[in-house]
């Protein structure tokens, strides 16, 4: 998130983190890398043909899930924007909208984590650290 993107903060806050800008943000937010970057780097690291095929499959599935998320994203944002523009809106009017966003976020997190752990199975610990260098949490 760029520090000047207050609009993005707003949608993350009102809406949902993973639907914030694009479904692609789910994996990017988790790993710091796009699926394209992960594919390129993982395939450079991993030589085993079977594992390479599995990596490609995981990332392809991930991208397909992302496209599904993106399909509903704009519709949800439009619905929320319409509520914000109403002067007669009541707090309870936001509840189902927020509930939908929250449900979508939980599903997106679950899908992304599943992708992460499936990908993890295809790499050794050393290869994983090479793909995602960084300190311990």
């Amino acid at each position, binding site marked *: *998130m*760029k*520090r*000047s*993107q*207050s*609009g*993005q*903060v*707003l*949608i*993350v*806050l*009102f809406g949902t*983190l993973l639907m*914030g*800008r*694009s479904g*692609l*943000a789910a994996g*990017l*937010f*988790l*790993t*710091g890398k796009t699926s394209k970057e992960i594919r390129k780097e993982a395939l450079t690291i991993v030589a085993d043909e079977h594992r390479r095929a599995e990596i490609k499959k995981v990332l392809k599935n991930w991208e397909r899930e992302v496209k599904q998320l*993106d399909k509903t*994203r*704009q519709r949800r*944002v439009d619905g*929320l*924007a*319409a509520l*914000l*523009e*109403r*002067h*007669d*809106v009541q*707090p309870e009017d*936001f509840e189902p909208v*927020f509930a939908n966003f*929250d449900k979508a*976020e939980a599903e997106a*997190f679950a899908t992304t*984590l599943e992708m*992460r*752990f499936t990908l*993890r199975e295809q*790499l*050794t*610990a050393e290869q*994983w*650290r090479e793909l*995602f*260098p*960084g*300190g*311990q*949490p």
Partner: protein
Amino acid sequence: MTKAPPSVLHCHDTESSDPRRSGFATAMIAACSENRLPQGGAGARAMQDMRDEVSRIVVDAQRREKLHAAILRYEDELRTFEQTVLEFQEILHALNSDPGASADQFSDLISRYEVERKAARARLLKIHFDLLGLTTEDEWRSIAKREAKLLRAAADPAGMRTTRS
């Protein structure tokens, strides 16, 4: 001014004792507390548009002053939450880079973040209703376009890379 509670996002295995992280967070919060949202970008422009629109269309000085104060609180909430997101993202990346990280560790971290997000959302919604209460329907029709613009600016798929800058 509505203030967000201290972040409950901690390092998973060290709780909040990591001096580097807490030092970083303190520095960032201190830096942010002295400035309004950075100028530039569709979001910052939309916030300024809201302020300008209030100045332009709200004739009553008392209400206008309260509206400007509410917009500042709104901006402060966004800035504070932005810090929470950045901190969460940093911890998430570190956890992801650990090949031995468990699903429970991720779930726990995400759950704590979600508590913060929902609390901040409730505060922001309260400010939104403060704005509504301070405007007539006609005034709001004009001002609300700026708030919606802020939201829609976020939905623009361009430039989505999540980085500190």
